[in-house]
C-alpha cells in the first residue's frame, strides 16, 4: 500500500489566522496519486486548490498557516517534517512544477540557456552520486530536452531571452525545465491557461506524451473541466476546501453524482449546443464563517438536516467512484 502511492494525503486541515478570526481553508482533504498516474484537481476560484498544492510543495509558512494532518507523504516521506535542506533536495529532483503564467515563471534578465543550466547544475549538486558534469555535458542535456519538447532550433533558443519567445514556446521551455532532472512527480498548476486554445491543445498533448513515456505521476490543477478530462486519468472535484467527488474521468464526467459536480458540469457550455443550465445558486462561502457539515449544503437543492450537522465522508458508490454526500451514503445504508 505504502509504495503504490507517490503522493498520499490523509485528513489535511489548513487554517490561517486572519484579522476576522480563523480562516478554515482546507477541511480534511484526502487525496492520493498512484505511481505513474495522472490526476486532476478541479475546482473554482478560491476552493483551496493552490493551498493544497503549496502544502504538498512545503511552501506554506507556519505561522500564519496552521496545518493539521494524518498523513502527507511523498514517496513514503513526510514532506511537512523535512528539514529545509532535505526539502530543497526533494524539490529539485523528485518533484517539479509547471506554473500557469510562463512569463512570470521565467527570469527576464537571463537567457533560456542560463536558466536551464542552473536547473541541471542544481540537481547534480544535490544528487551526490554523480561527479560534477562538464559545461559541455550540461549543454548537451539542455539541448536534448529542448528537442524533446519539440522547440525548433534549440541552439538558438538557448541564447534567447524569455521576452523573445512566444507564449507557447515559453511554456515549452518551462516543461523542459520541469522534466530535465527526471522527476518522479510533477505538479502542473493550470498549464496552458494563459494560451490560445490551439496552442494550449499542442502543449497539453506534448505534456501528456512526455509524462506517459517517462512514467511520471502528475497532479494537474485546473479550473477547466475539459482540460482535466482530456489530460488526466482520474480527477478530484473540490469545493470550498473539501473533496466532494473522485472517480476516473470517464466515469466522473459521464455520470457525476454529487450535486456540486452536477451543477458545475451543467454550467459548462457544450460544443454540441443546447441551453446552459441555471448554474449553481448562491456564492462560494467565506472561510472565516464556513458552513458546518458539508460546505455545499447552503447552495444544495437536495440539502437535508444531516448535511449541516456532520461532514459526509468519501464513500464508494461503485468501483473507483467515491462521493462525499449523504444522498448516496443514506441510500446505501437503507439498502443494506
Amino acid at each position: 500500500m505504502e509504495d503504490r502511492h507517490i503522493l498520499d494525503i490523509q485528513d489535511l486541515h489548513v487554517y490561517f489566522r486572519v484579522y476576522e478570526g480563523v480562516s478554515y481553508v482546507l477541511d480534511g482533504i484526502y487525496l492520493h496519486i498512484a505511481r505513474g498516474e495522472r490526476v486532476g484537481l478541479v475546482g473554482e476560484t478560491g476552493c483551496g486548490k493552490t493551498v493544497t498544492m503549496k502544502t504538498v510543495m512545503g511552501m506554506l509558512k507556519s505561522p500564519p498557516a496552521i496545518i493539521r494532518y494524518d498523513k502527507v507523504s511523498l514517496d513514503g516521506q513526510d514532506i511537512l517534517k523535512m528539514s529545509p535542506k532535505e526539502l530543497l533536495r526533494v524539490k529539485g529532483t523528485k518533484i517539479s512544477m509547471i506554473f500557469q503564467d510562463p512569463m512570470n515563471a521565467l527570469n527576464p534578465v537571463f537567457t533560456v540557456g542560463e536558466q536551464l543550466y542552473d536547473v541541471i547544475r542544481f540537481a547534480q549538486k544535490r544528487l551526490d552520486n554523480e561527479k560534477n558534469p562538464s559545461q559541455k555535458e550540461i549543454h548537451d542535456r539542455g539541448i536534448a530536452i529542448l528537442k524533446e519538447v519539440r522547440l525548433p532550433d534549440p541552439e538558438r533558443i538557448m541564447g534567447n531571452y524569455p521576452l523573445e519567445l512566444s507564449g507557447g514556446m515559453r511554456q515549452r521551455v518551462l516543461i523542459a525545465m520541469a522534466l530535465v532532472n527526471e522527476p518522479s512527480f510533477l505538479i502542473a498548476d493550470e498549464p496552458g491557461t494563459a494560451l490560445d486554445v490551439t496552442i494550449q491543445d499542442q502543449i497539453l498533448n506534448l505534456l501528456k506524451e512526455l509524462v506517459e513515456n517517462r512514467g511520471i505521476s502528475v497532479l494537474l490543477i485546473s479550473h477547466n473541466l475539459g482540460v482535466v478530462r482530456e489530460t488526466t486519468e482520474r480527477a478530484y472535484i473540490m469545493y470550498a476546501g473539501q473533496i466532494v467527488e473522485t472517480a476516473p474521468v470517464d466515469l466522473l464526467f459521464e455520470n457525476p453524482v454529487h450535486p456540486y459536480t452536477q451543477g458545475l458540469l451543467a454550467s459548462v457550455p457544450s460544443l454540441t449546443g443546447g441551453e446552459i443550465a441555471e448554474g449553481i445558486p448562491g456564492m462560494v462561502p467565506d472561510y472565516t464563517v464556513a458552513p458546518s457539515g458539508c460546505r455545499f449544503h447552503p447552495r444544495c437543492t437536495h440539502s437535508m438536516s444531516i448535511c449541516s450537522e456532520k461532514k459526509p465522508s468519501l464513500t464508494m458508490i461503485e468501483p473507483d467512484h467515491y462521493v462525499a454526500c449523504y444522498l448516496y451514503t443514506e441510500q446505501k445504508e437503507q439498502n443494506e
Partner: protein
Amino acid sequence: MNEPILVVENLVKYFPIRGGLFHHQIGEVKAVDDISFNIKSDEIFGLVGESGSGKSTIGKTLVRIYKPTSGNIRFKGKDVFHIAEKELFFFKKEVQMVFQDPKSSLNPRRSIKSTLEDPLIVHKLAQNGHSRKKTIKDLLQMVELSSNYMYKYPSELSGGQRQRIAIARALAVKPSFIVLDEPTSALDVSVQAKIIRLLQRLQSELQLSYLFISHDLSLMRTVASRIAVMYLGRIYELAPTEELFRNPLHPYTRTLISAVPVVSEKEQQVKPTKQSKEGEIPSPANPPSGCAFHSRCSLADQICSEQLPELVEVIQGHFVRCHHVSLNIASAKL
C-alpha cells in the same frame, strides 16, 4: 429575415509601429484587414478568434473608441464616422459596450449608485433624484441584484456581481445594440452560466442585438446565432452557428473546434479532424503572405502562400475563405 441594424463594409484598421530616433513609423500592425459583415436586429452575432485576430479591435471600432483606417460602419442606416454632433448623442445612447474585466471597467472610487446615475444624467433619462433612484432600482432588478447594492463600491462585490453592474450601466440608456467583449472570460464556469443566462434573457426581453466577442467556441455555440471566425485580422469563415459546427469548412475552423477541451464523450465525437501542423500563431505585425493560415495548414500548397483566397459563399449563408474548400466540401458529403 429582418433588416440589418449594423453594416460593416471593408473595415480596415492598421496601428502604426513606431520606433527609431525620431519615433517615426516603421511598420504597421494590420489588426483588422478588410472586414465586412452585418448584424441583424434581435441577433447575437459571434466573433471568434485567438489573440491577435483583431476581434476586440472590431468591437472597439464599432463603438467609436478607434477610428478606422478605411471602410465604413453604418448603424441603422447612418455612417457612424460621419454623423452630425446631434446625432452622435443619439448613437452613443443606442450603442453600448461591456468589457471583459469589470474590475477595471468600473471606477473603484464611485459607488454603484453614482456609476449608474451618470448615464441617466447625461442623457436626461430621469428628471430628478427621486426618479433616478427609482430607475437605478429597476436596473439593479433587471440584472437580478437587490436595491441595497446601490450604496456599495465595486471592491465589495464579487466578479459576477461586478459584471452585472457593468451590464446594468450599459442598459441604463436603453440601447438597442451592445458590444460584449469577452464578458465572461474572467469568471468561473458556474458564474459564467448565470451571466450568460442573464444576457440571453435581457436580449429577448428588450429585443437587443449583441456583437458577442469571445475566444471560447463552446460558449459561442450556445449563445450566438451566426459566427464569424477570425484569424490575423481577417474573417476566414462565416456561417450560422448550427451550420458552422456541423459542417466547418475552413481548416482553421476545424483546428479551432477540435482543440477545444471538452467534458463529454458526445462532444468528443462531433469534433472534426484537425487540419494543422504544430506551430505558433504568427505575429499580426508580420502575417504570412497569401492565406495567413498557410504556415500552419496541412492542406496548404503553393497557391496558398501566394494568393489570398476570396471569402466565397459556398452554401446559403456559409462563407469560406480557402483555396481548397472543395476538398473539405467533398469530405463532408462522404
